[in-house]
């Protein structure tokens, strides 16, 4: 199969890894709870991309399903926290 050159794998990996670390920093530091949830929301999308990338590098089609299921359920979690703020649940 067609595989990527090594420098490109390293570049993509470093960019996505740094992005995840910065989202984690926002979760650790965030002054209010909303900041932490914003960090979690961004980290969810970054992780969906990361799961697709792992599926691409190891050439397995089934890995895309994990990404889709993860996106659906994390969206549910964020909406549940927003409902808590408004007094619902």
């Amino acid at each position, binding site marked *: 199969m067609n595989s*990527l050159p090594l420098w490109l794998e390293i570049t993509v990996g470093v960019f996505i890894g740094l992005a995840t670390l*910065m989202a984690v920093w*926002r979760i650790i530091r965030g002054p209010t709870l909303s900041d932490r949830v914003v960090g979690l929301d961004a980290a969810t999308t970054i992780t*969906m991309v990361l799961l697709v990338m792992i599926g691409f590098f190891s050439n397995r089609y089934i890995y895309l399903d994990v990404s889709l299921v993860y996106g659906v359920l994390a969206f549910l979690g964020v909406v549940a926290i*927003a409902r808590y*703020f408004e007094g619902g649940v």
Partner: protein
Amino acid sequence: MKIVGEIFLIIGSLFLFLSALGLLRMPDVYNRMQAGTKGTTFGAFFSILGVMAMRPEWFLKGLSIIIFILLTNPLSSHALLRATHRLGVPLAKKAIDAYAEDKEKGIVEK
């Protein structure tokens, strides 16, 4: 096709990185949400487009992931911002806030 996919992958991961940088640098929740939502959506869009360009047989599943991200990402940010404003988190500087004015007048319920 392969070159196009590689370029898309680089663009997508670069925008993911930039949006996370915005998450780090912006002064308050609302501006962080601007960077977080837009940048991650665009970055995910281009990264998955790049993967689809290099693996054409994954087209349909990648398309469903892209449509899903485009639909749900604005929705969750919208719900979160509305709830945050209802909690009373203030804006950054001396910014105008028409939403709070209308809450004071009673046009929108608190």
